């Protein structure tokens, strides 16, 4: 034990103390003084608001963009005919009113034995692009022309091509007649049918539209995204740095009330672990719904309360449906009794309490309580309250008898199921462990096997290589037909190039018929009846184990008024012009 050793030990002790201090502070920073000071420095009245998000964004051409973060930002600068509010109700943006069959502004016509809809959309007289050019029917017709072009890579083409043609009234370029290809009840739900500024984009399309992806590569949204005239929302983009931030400033040509906040910066912080530090240091003022995960928000909420920080953590129930798809190719899961045992033996109420402190609601089927179609009426849907005894009985009836090792056996085979999800998702991995324990008590062995998202979604789920159970979520909007996930024509197979999202291989002919009827049923009451019948089939056949409806989380300054997360795909930025920092500092 010489001096050198002592010196080494002293240095090790110093490093250990330093590390401990750091750890302690990282978990529970003292006082909250630095954070409030930092937060206060950058906000006098409504001067500026910096929003942190953790998801990447792309070029903001409304026809081409496909990322959630792009859509989140585009709603600040781009408006269309209608949208969905935080209460799940349709409201007008660029249109004066929503056409309907009742008031005669829409009618069903028959052309060549095919039913179509003709609807009149009247645009707001003061609706303009941000260079002062009026928005007319020609801008919508041009968007349709671009979207329909085979050289342009629009993701979901039907959003646009459901409209066959758009014509303007000879005397009024703002009175548009839309002819729809099919007579569908939700013809007015055009929240993603964005107009394009024809006066700026048509020359580009004429020049490059024939080349493969020529238009999108040369569009002004790509080449000059801050150009005046590209936007029509309450804000206009004044700076774009892909992978870093986008700056928004008020659009003086906006048709509605001028926004109160004079500058909004949306900043990308890819590591959610440092999001909180960025908030506390004043690099950002709030975290949008595309920022924190639920567990991070729960932890931060505790700190906000304990340290009286000037933020509010909001948990908004959403329609995002977390569930487990059951692979009906699996011989064990072909047996309905086994599927019913799995759902009955799953204590979802306890799961959401234990893992999410009750901030996310247990799911009973694919429709969330935010959806007007939701029902928990036992006459309409089959409910499966937790019962270990009942689940065991069902497994006994299916021939799976409890063995001496605590696992059930049938014909010499153990009741063992492979359970897969996306690797690295902490919440999902916790749910896996929870379910593993619950099913162990029933005598079912759960073997977890996780994969990176690109492999899981790119190969495993769509080719049904997931063994028995695949956990993931569907993001949707209220009153959305479940056709793409339930219809037998949506079962991915080699013939259809493995497209379609019925990953369970669930085929129910009665249900297929009901979904086809749903699309063309104009009577809201009858539609509700149809969707309840569909949901009844879904809950009877148990092709999926519903887990919970996710909550959207955000962290906002306490003095931010009129901020309403929506819980669906049309983000809270849809009414960004109403946001108000209240004329005081963030303190």
């Amino acid at each position, binding site marked *: 034990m010489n*001096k*050198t050793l002592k*010196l*080494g030990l002293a*240095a*090790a002790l110093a*490093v250990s103390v330093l590390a401990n201090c*750091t750890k302690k*502070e*990282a978990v529970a*920073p003292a006082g909250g003084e*630095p954070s409030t000071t*930092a937060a206060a420095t950058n906000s006098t009245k409504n001067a500026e608001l910096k929003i942190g998000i953790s998801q*990447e964004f*792309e*070029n903001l051409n409304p026809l*081409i*963009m*496909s*990322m*959630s973060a792009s859509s989140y930002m585009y709603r600040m600068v781009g408006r269309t005919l209608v949208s969905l509010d935080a209460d799940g109700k349709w409201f007008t943006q660029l249109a004066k009113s929503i056409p309907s069959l009742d008031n005669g502004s829409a009618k069903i016509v028959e052309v060549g034995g095919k039913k179509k809809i003709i609807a009149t959309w009247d645009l707001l007289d003061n609706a303009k692009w941000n260079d002062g050019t009026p928005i007319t029917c020609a801008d919508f017709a041009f968007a349709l022309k671009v979207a329909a072009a*085979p050289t342009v*890579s629009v*993701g*979901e*083409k*039907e959003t646009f091509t459901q409209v066959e043609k758009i014509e303007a009234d000879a005397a009024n370029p703002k009175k548009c007649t839309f002819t729809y290809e099919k007579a569908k009840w939700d013809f007015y739900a055009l929240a993603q049918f964005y107009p394009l500024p024809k006066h700026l984009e048509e020359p580009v399309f004429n020049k490059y539209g024939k080349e493969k*992806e020529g238009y*999108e*590569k040369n569009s002004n949204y*790509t080449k000059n995204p801050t150009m005046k005239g590209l936007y029509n929302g309450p804000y206009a983009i004044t*700076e774009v*740095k*892909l*992978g*870093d*931030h986008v*700056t928004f400033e008020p659009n003086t040509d906006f048709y509605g009330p001028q926004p109160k906040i004079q500058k909004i910066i949306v900043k990308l*912080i*890819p*590591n959610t672990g*440092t999001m909180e*530090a*960025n908030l506390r*240091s004043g*690099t950002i003022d709030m975290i949008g719904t595309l920022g924190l995960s639920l567990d991070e928000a729960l932890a931060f909420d505790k700190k906000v309360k304990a340290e009286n920080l000037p933020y509010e953590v909001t948990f908004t129930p959403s329609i995002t449906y977390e569930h487990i798809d059951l692979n009906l190719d699996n011989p064990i899961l072909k047996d309905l009794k086994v599927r019913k045992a799995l759902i009955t033996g799953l204590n979802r109420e306890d799961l959401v309490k234990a893992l999410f402190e009750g901030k996310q609601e247990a799911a009973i089927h694919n429709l969330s309580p935010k959806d007007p179609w939701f029902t928990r009426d036992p006459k309409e849907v089959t409910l499966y309250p937790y019962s270990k005894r009942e689940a065991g009985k069902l497994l006994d009836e299916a021939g799976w008898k409890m063995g001496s090792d605590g696992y059930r056996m049938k014909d010499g085979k153990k009741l063992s199921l492979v359970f897969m999800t996306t690797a690295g998702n902490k919440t999902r991995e916790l749910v896996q462990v929870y379910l593993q324990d619950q099913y162990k008590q029933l005598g079912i062995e759960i073997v977890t096997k996780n994969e*990176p*998202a*690109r*492999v899981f*979604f*790119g*190969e495993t789920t*769509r080719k049904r290589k997931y063994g028995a159970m695949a956990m993931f979520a*569907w*993001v949707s909007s209220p009153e959305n037909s479940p056709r*793409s996930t339930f219809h037998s024509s949506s079962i991915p197979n080699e013939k259809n*190039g493995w*497209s379609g*999202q019925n990953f369970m291989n669930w085929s129910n002919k009665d249900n297929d018929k009901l979904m086809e009827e749903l699309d063309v049923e104009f009577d809201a009451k009858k539609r509700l009846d149809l969707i309840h019948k569909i949901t009844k089939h879904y809950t009877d056949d148990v092709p999926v184990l519903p887990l919970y409806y996710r909550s959207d989380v955000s962290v906002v300054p306490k003095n931010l008024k009129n901020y309403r997360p929506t819980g669906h795909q049309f983000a809270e930025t849809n009414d960004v012009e109403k946001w108000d920092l209240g004329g005081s500092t963030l303190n």
Partner: protein
Amino acid sequence: MTTYILRRLIQTLVVIAILSYVCFYLMTLMPGDPVDMMISSNPKITAADVVRLRELYGLDQPSYVRYGHWMGDILKGELGYSRTYRVPVQDLLGPRLVSTFILSMVALGFSILISVPLGVFSALRPGSKVDYVINFFSFAGISIPSFWLGIVCIIFFAVWIPLFPAGGTQTVGGPDLGFFANLLDRSKYLILPVLSLSLQQIGRFVRFTRSAMLESLRNDFIRTAKAKGLPRQIIIWRHAFRNALIPLITILALSISSIFSGAIITETVFAYQGVGKLTYDSIIGNDFNVAMVSFIISVAMVLVMNLVADLLYGVADPRISYS
């Protein structure tokens, strides 16, 4: 010498061409393509959409045909179009390459400035207290995970003592401030990432310098130089250090060759707009054009830096000749 350089450059081009095809082919083997990524985030995409998009993106073609198209574009000077960000690759990659280059080179320069004198100093006093202390901190630097160090730096210097920004590349509107103000602003954003990136490098370089110097100091010519009564500084720097340079050049060349890919974690933690994370995301997101260009840059850097290292060996040791 010129013939040697030319021969090596031709070899480099051939290796890049072969490896680029191997890499392209391997990427096509990975499950999931850009269309699959779109499907997973949007259940409304129809089978017709899938067929149309695959055809439009050329994903329905065999890998060698797609590679041929890609190579043809590269030879015409077109780097392609990013399917993830929907912008031309050069617009996306250019500013990020510059940012990463600045970050990595500043960190490397800072590391060399600190580590070489420390390594030499430590080698001159092996077994001393100072040697132990330097070794201890070198090992600590090597052992501390960079993501942890990054977060600690943010908590210390951005939250507790708000001296530096917690993340980003520059203040919004920074370029409008004027050249010097902008330079100062960008430097402010560089300090924490450079600190986080350098500590590991310093530890590694100190260890290499120390061991190379120790090895060099044991040589007979050092004993001869001492016997001749040459001044100590001449012996250390002109004779011992020059001989210790060979392994140092190797490690430096390797470090420089990975400057565009070696800062992924630091860039992610500090939300620094660099090329490392972009490359990673492009591989994960199957953004072929971005991934391939990044790959070519990476391979070219390794090959060119190895060539530079070979040439520098000749400068450091006159016994090595390429004639």
